[in-house]
């Protein structure tokens, strides 16, 4: 028996090829959908990939939901897998697992920016045929649009996230100032309070090179009336409106209203600064209200308010918020597709949505719950004012969304740092968008 290096190499190549082919055993989608259409009557076990859901009263919200589901379906047991809270880190972890064909988790909570990419890559089961007719009437239209890619729906609604302007009502009252209605007024108010030495930073937001900045850029562009894509999904960024949005981002840092370190801020960094009393205004997602109002973790608890984001003077537009949130996706490799789909539907249903309004520091996806008794009892302004928001979607309906997002946040970060002019930033973003949408960006 003569085993030499050539033989070993040939063997390794064959093994690799065999392994590659082994991964090619495609599944018939109709079979998967047929399995998902039936809720099993035999005992079943499910795993749910879920990041921490902000809690209003200290309870673990995911556990409450699981217990409620198990009460309704005594034969199905659900265990949770704790996932990361950041969208990018979470996506990397779950995508690795799903791409390897793992049957677990059966259901996973994912960002509302994922459906197109995950649908395109067959990492999520299309669920439109598994939802009852009229299902989407109960949810915001923007959520349905964002969950759909090429006519197929890949996500089942769970909760939405919207952005607000949080402010220090004690400091505004001290200086006799009102909550700003425009960005220009916010700049002036911030400088007034900063000059008095009452606060270090005027406006805290997020400009790190992550998805956080893309959400901010989307909002500022919408404030100014600039479009990111045209009706045919091509890059349309440009013009005076876009430059106005980019100029504002640069002005915050240039005038000292925002600390220069905002270029490294994600949501948690800006929230930390705000709850430690270092900022007058904070732009953040709705969950920040619960955190900033909790005395154990916030020095400004009881001194804050929440308002809709302002707009630019003369545009008549304000209250813009990026449409965010988290939905449930079904793993197509799950061994319990029927039970998994039932769990996803249950999370979108009335019982869980009311539970979210009562216990969680998030905005339930079901619109009827927003003015229900649970929401009114909680008294959370981010829930009660959700219906007043002007939701704008990020350009998520492309499988190349991560590249699209990068095309926006990279030049925007340079503009905030002052190393790129607003006009050059807009040009760079437009060029990057075009390359990304063609699938040629890294």
């Amino acid at each position, binding site marked *: *028996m003569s*085993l030499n290096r050539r033989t*070993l190499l040939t*063997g*390794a*190549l064959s*093994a*690799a*090829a065999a*392994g*590659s*082919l*082994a*991964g*090619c*055993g*495609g*599944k*018939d*989608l109709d079979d*998967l959908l047929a399995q998902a259409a039936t809720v099993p009557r035999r005992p079943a076990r499910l795993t749910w990939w879920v990041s921490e859901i902000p809690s209003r009263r200290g309870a673990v919200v995911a556990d409450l939901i699981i217990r409620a589901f198990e009460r309704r379906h005594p034969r199905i047991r659900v265990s949770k897998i704790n996932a990361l809270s950041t969208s*990018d880190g979470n*996506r*990397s972890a779950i*995508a*690795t697992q799903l*791409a390897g*064909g793992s049957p677990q988790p059966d259901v996973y909570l994912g960002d509302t920016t994922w459906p197109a*990419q995950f649908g395109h*890559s*067959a*990492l999520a089961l299309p669920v439109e045929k598994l939802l009852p007719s009229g299902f989407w009437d109960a949810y915001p239209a923007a959520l349905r649009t964002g969950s759909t890619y090429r006519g197929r729906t890949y996500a089942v609604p769970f909760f939405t996230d919207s952005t607000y302007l949080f402010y220090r009502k004690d400091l505004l009252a001290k200086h006799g100032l009102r909550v700003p209605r425009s960005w220009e007024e916010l700049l002036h108010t911030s400088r007034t309070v900063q000059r008095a030495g009452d606060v270090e930073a005027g406006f805290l937001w997020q400009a*790190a*090179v*992550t998805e956080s900045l893309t959400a901010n850029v989307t909002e500022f562009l919408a404030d100014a009336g600039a479009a990111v894509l045209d009706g045919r999904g091509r890059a349309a960024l440009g013009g005076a409106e876009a430059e106005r949005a980019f100029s504002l981002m640069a002005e915050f840092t240039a005038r000292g209203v925002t*600390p*220069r*370190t*905002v*270029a*490294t801020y994600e949501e948690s*960094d800006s929230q*930390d*600064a705000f709850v*430690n009393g*270092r900022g007058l205004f904070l732009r953040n997602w709705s969950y920040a209200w619960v955190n900033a109002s909790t005395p154990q973790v916030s020095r400004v608890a009881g001194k804050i308010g929440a308002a809709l984001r302002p707009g630019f003077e003369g545009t008549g537009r304000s209250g813009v918020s990026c449409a965010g949130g988290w939905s449930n996706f079904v793993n*197509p*490799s799950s061994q319990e597709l029927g039970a998994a789909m039932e769990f996803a539907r249950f999370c979108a249903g009335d019982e869980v949505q009311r539970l979210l309004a009562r216990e969680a520091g998030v905005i339930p996806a079901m619109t009827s719950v927003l003015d229900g008794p649970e929401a009114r009892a909680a008294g959370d302004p981010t829930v009660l004012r959700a219906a007043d928001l002007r939701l704008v979607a990020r350009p998520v309906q492309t499988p*190349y969304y*991560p*590249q699209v997002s*990068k095309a926006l946040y*990279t*030049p925007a*970060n*340079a503009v905030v*740092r002052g*190393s790129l002019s607003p006009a050059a930033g807009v040009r760079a973003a437009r060029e990057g968008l075009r390359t990304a949408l063609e699938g*040629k960006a*890294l």
Partner: protein
Amino acid sequence: MRSVLHTKTAQTPSRGEGGGVRTGAPRKSPSAPPGSTARRRARTGWLFASPALLVIAAVTVFPVVFSLVLSFCEVRLEYGGLRFGSPTLAHYEALLTHPEWYRALAFTLGFTIVSVSVELVLGTLTALVLERLGAARGWILALLLLPWALINVIAAQLWSYLFNGTYGAVSWMCEQLFGTQPDILGQPVPAMAAMVAVDVWKTTPFVAIVVLAGLMLIPGDVYEAAEIDGASAWTTFWKVTLPQLRPIIAIAVLFRILQAFGIFDLPFVLTQGGPGTATQSVAILGYRILFQNLDFAGGAAVAVTTAVIVLGCCLLFLRVFRAQVDEGGRA
């Protein structure tokens, strides 16, 4: 001095000069078994070795070959697994024609050269001091090893707190000293410098330990000979210590190049490759392509090109370094 170096040369013949170092094919001994017995023994040998070979194939050879196959194929995720299409060079073409890859490569090369150089100098100096220490050496060694023992991600997170522009200790100290709070991780040059500083803090102890081991292997008589020849401390270091340390330094540098070129944890935690793409290493770029863009073939192409570059650098380094050692031996 010459006498010292001749002594060393006589002790360690260079590779390829003498038959004692290089061994040819094993000769048959007069009592060698006949052919069939030898084949049977070989089969038995392979049989016993096969479990280990299978494990090596599974954890080392298979992933490498699989990455290669991925990078040269059209790959698509479908229900049930990966679908391999026709062979293509498109992923390499896309990579090698994209400026972002060159920027990532430039950062990675720059980071590797600067951090390894600084670590080498500081590590050698530290080792020289440690060698002269008496009873306290053990304690100081243990303290020095603390940063090296820390898990990379934890060390990076620790430094991200220190560099934080809002509440970081480093930022606060700079404010106290210079009256202004620096934006350390928000500007390209300070962010790169911070990353090198953290790497130097973490990895210099490793270089120091390796060099210290080399120092302790140098026989005392060569120093005595140098002293008899009237060499100063400075001359002794350059003409005696350093030449004798070259092989061990080569190993330390080789390890460091391999580690530094694959830098991922520091930029991932400290800057996420930013500001802009200023601190985006090739590993971060590969991660983004593979795990965020879900482009498996593109990510594999980054992995393969990086591996080829690192291998080339290491081979080049070894060749250059070996030549220097030989020169030292001939001097």
